[in-house]
C-alpha cells in the first residue's frame, strides 16, 4: 500500500514523539532482534572538535579499532614495537628519573607532547639531539649510548605518543568500582516490576566485558524496538516500526508484510516503545547506582 504525500500539507505531524508504555506483540518483537542495533551502528560519536568516521566499536577487534583510528587521524609511521620494548629498558635506565617511566614528565618535561619527539622521523633528529643533550637546561649528553640504543629509545617514545594519540588503542580500566550488595538491592527494588529473576540469571556470561554488560543492562537495544499503530482512511495497520520520518512510516505487520505509508491528512500514528522504562532510567540514573548494579550483575556469571 502506498499513499502519495500532498505537498504543503502536514496534518499529522507528531510533535516530539510520545513514547507510551509497552503494549503487546512480544512474539513479534522476538523476530526483530537487532533492529535497533543496526541503527546504532551508524551513530557518529564526538571526537574532539571533529566528527569521527562511522565506526562500530562494539564489533571491531581492538587491532581493527586502532588501525581504523590511526588511518582516520593520519598518524605517522607505526612505531617498531620490538625496538620500543628494547628501548623501554634503556629509557628507564637513562631517562626515566627525570622524564618519568612513561615519559609523561617528572622533574623534566613530558616527552610525549614534546615538539622534538613529535617532529622526529625514525630517530634521526632525536639521536642527534641525545648525543649532545641540552646542558644549559640540565639535560646531559648521552654520547655513550650506541646508535641502536638511541633508535630504540626513540621508538619507545614514539610508541608512548601512539598510545596517547591513537584513541582507538585506548583500553578500558577496571570499571567494576561499585558495591555489589547495593546493586542487588537496586535491582530488587527497581527492576522486578517488569523483569523476573530469569532476566538476570547468568547475565554476565552473555557479555565479553563489564563495560558491555553495563551498556546492555542500561540499554538492551537488541530487545528494543518501537511499534506503531497507523490509522489511515484505508484502514489501520499495526506492527514493528522499520523507519519513520516526518513524511513516511514503514512498518512490518504480524504476518511479516511491510507497509510503507505516506504521512498526510487523515493518517494518525501512535507509537509505543518497549524500552521506555530504560530510557527513563538513562535520564535519571546516578553514577553510583550504575556502578553498583554493574558490579552486582557481574557476579551473575
Amino acid at each position, binding site marked *: 500500500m502506498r499513499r502519495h504525500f500532498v505537498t504543503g500539507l502536514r496534518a499529522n505531524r507528531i510533535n516530539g514523539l510520545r513514547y507510551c508504555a509497552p503494549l503487546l506483540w512480544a512474539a513479534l518483537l522476538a523476530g526483530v532482534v537487532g533492529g535497533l542495533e543496526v541503527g546504532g551502528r551508524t551513530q557518529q560519536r564526538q571526537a574532539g572538535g571533529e566528527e569521527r568516521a562511522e565506526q562500530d566499536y562494539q564489533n571491531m577487534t581492538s587491532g581493527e579499532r586502532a588501525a581504523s583510528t590511526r588511518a582516520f587521524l593520519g598518524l605517522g609511521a607505526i612505531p617498531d614495537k620490538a625496538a620500543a620494548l628494547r628501548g623501554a629498558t634503556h629509557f628507564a635506565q637513562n631517562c626515566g628519573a627525570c622524564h618519568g617511566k612513561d615519559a609523561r614528565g617528572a622533574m623534566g618535561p613530558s616527552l610525549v607532547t614534546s615538539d622534538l619527539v613529535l617532529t622526529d622521523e625514525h630517530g634521526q633528529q632525536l639521536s642527534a639531539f641525545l648525543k649532545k643533550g641540552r646542558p644549559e637546561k640540565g639535560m646531559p649528553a648521552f654520547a655513550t649510548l650506541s646508535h641502536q640504543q638511541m633508535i630504540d629509545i626513540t621508538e619507545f617514545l614514539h610508541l608512548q605518543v601512539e598510545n596517547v594519540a591513537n584513541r582507538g588503542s585506548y583500553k578500558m*580500566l577496571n570499571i567494576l568500582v561499585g558495591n555489589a550488595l547495593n546493586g542487588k538491592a537496586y535491582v530488587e527494588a527497581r527492576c522486578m516490576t517488569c523483569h523476573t529473576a530469569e532476566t538476570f540469571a547468568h547475565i554476565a556470561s552473555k557479555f565479553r566485558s563489564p563495560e558491555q554488560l553495563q551498556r546492555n543492562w542500561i540499554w538492551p537495544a537488541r530487545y528494543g524496538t518501537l511499534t506503531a499503530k497507523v490509522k489511515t482512511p484505508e484502514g489501520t495497520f499495526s506492527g514493528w516500526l522499520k523507519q519513520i520520518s516526518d513524511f513516511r512510516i514503514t512498518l512490518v505487520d504480524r504476518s511479516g508484510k511491510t507497509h510503507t505509508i505516506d504521512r498526510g491528512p487523515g493518517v494518525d500514528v501512535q507509537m509505543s516503545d518497549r524500552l521506555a522504562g530504560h530510557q527513563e532510567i538513562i535520564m535519571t540514573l546516578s553514577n553510583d547506582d550504575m556502578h553498583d548494579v554493574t558490579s552486582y550483575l557481574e557476579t551473575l556469571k
Partner: protein
Amino acid sequence: MKTRAVFCATISAAALLSSLFSAQKVSLDPNTIGKAPVTSWPTFNGDYSGERYSTLTQISPDNLNRLALQWVYRITGVGAQRGAPVPIIKCTPLQVDGVLYITIPDHLWALDAGTGKELWHYDWVDHGGHLIGQRGVGIWNSTVFFLTPDNWLISLDANTGKENWRKNYADARKQYFSTSAPLIVKNHVIVGVGGDAMDMPGFLDSFDPATGDLQWTWWSTPRKGDPALETWPNEAASDHGGGMTWMPGTYDPVLNLLYWPTGNTNPVFAGQGRPGANLWTESIVALDVDTGKLKWYFQVSPHDTHDFDNTTAPILFDHPANGKPERLLVQAARNGFLVTLDRATGKYLVVKPYVPLDYSSGLSAEGEPIPIPDKDPSVGGSINIVNASNWPAPAYSPKTGLVYVNSVEGKAIYYLTDDSRNPSGYGGTVVGIGRAVRVLQAIDPLTGNTAWRHAYPNLNNAPTTVGPSLLTTASNLLISGDDQKNLIIFSADRGEILWHHELNANESGGIVTYLLDGKQYIVFGAGDSLYAWSLRQ
C-alpha cells in the same frame, strides 16, 4: 592512503582552458563584505554577523510549489580519501560575480553559478592532517584563500585557480589539522586551526592577504606572565591545554571586534592533571581584529571534561530596546546552554539550558555554568549529555527575533581510560546510550525560552554532526534537513513544514541563497553533490 609523486598543486589543462573562455571576472571589494548579501554569498556566514539570514523574498511560502532543481554538480574522480570513503561536501559555498567556490579536503572547485559547470579545480597533495571536513574558502578582491589538512594557507587567483603563494602555519606532525574557512576582514586573513590528539595549544593567526605575512597570533591559552595562568596548575599544562579555533568566527565592524569560539580543553576527558577553569578554552573571546588583543572573554564550559568543544557560531544581533539598540551575541553552545551576551562587554544576559541536562549546579556570578564534579568522566563511567549542537551553524532571523538550532537530546557514558596524575591526549572514551533525538528548536535569545520545537521522527539515533548549517529568509523560510535525506523548509515563525524534497544524501554543508540574473537560488551540498534550486517560470 593515496600517494602521489610530486608535491605540488596541479590544475588540469581542460579546466584551465575552460576558464580562459569564461567571461567571469571575480572581484570582491573587501569593504563590501559584511553587508547583507543579495547578489552574492561572499563569506562563510554570508555576512559578518553569523545570522545566516537573507533579505531575499522571491522564494516565499506562497510559491514553494514552483521550487525546482536547476542543476546538480557531482564530485567525481576524487574517490576515497583516508578516513573518508566518499567525498562529502561540508563546506558553505561562496558565490561572487557568478562563480561558486566549493571544497572538500584537499580540493577546491570554481563553478559557473548559472549552470553548475566546472570552471577550474585545484587539487592539493597533503602530507598529513585529518581529512574530516573542509568548511569553505575566503575571498578578497580577486584572491581565494583555502586551508589544507596539513595547515597550509593557499592564496589562489579567483579567476584561474593559479596559486599565488602558500604559507604553512602549523605542524601536522603535532596533530594540528585544518578544516576551517578563512575569515577576511579588511586587510586580514584570519585563520584558525584544529587538532586535539596531542595536547597542543590552539591559536588564531592573522595574515596579510597580499603577501601572506603574519600580522598577529592570539594563543587560546595564556603564556608566561599572563594572570590567566592562575586558571592552570602550571605553565606546561597551559602550553598543552588545547582550545582549537577550528570554526570561523564573527565580526562587529563598529566595535572592530572579532568573536571567536574556542574548542575543548586538553587533555580532553581526563581533567585531573589540569585543575582550574583552564582559560581561554571552551570560551567565546572578543579580539581586536587589528592587533589580536583580547578585549573580553566568556567561558561557556569552565574546566570542561566532556569535549563540549565550544565551536558553534557566536551570532551577532541587535535588539531594539528603549530606543537604543542593544548589541548582543547569542550562541547555542555545545554544552547545552544558550548563551546571550552584551557583545561590547561580554556581560551575560541569558545562560539557560536548551536541552535536558543535569551536570551543572548553577551559574557563577559571571553567568558561567558550574560543573558538578561527579559528572566528570570516571573509571566506572559517568552519564552525561552528548553534545547538544555541533559545527553546523545555527541561524537567527531579525524578523522573528528567534535563533534556530538543530539540537541533539541524548546521553552517553563517559569513561576515564587514563587515571594517572599526568594524563595526555583524550584519556577517556564515550559510549552513546539510549535514544538520541534531533530536535530543531526556535529559541528567544532574550529569554532562553523555546518558541517552538520540532523533533524529527527517526528510528535511528541522531548523528551528532551531520546536518546542514541553517538558512532563514525575510519571507519567513527556515531551511533545514533531517537525517533521512529530506530537504525541509519550515515556516520560521511557527515551525510548520511548508515543503520538502528527498535528496540522494543528507544535507551536509551550509545552505546559501542569492540573486543571480534576477533569480533567487538556494544552493547547498548533500553528500558528493551540490544542488541549485530556484522557481520554475
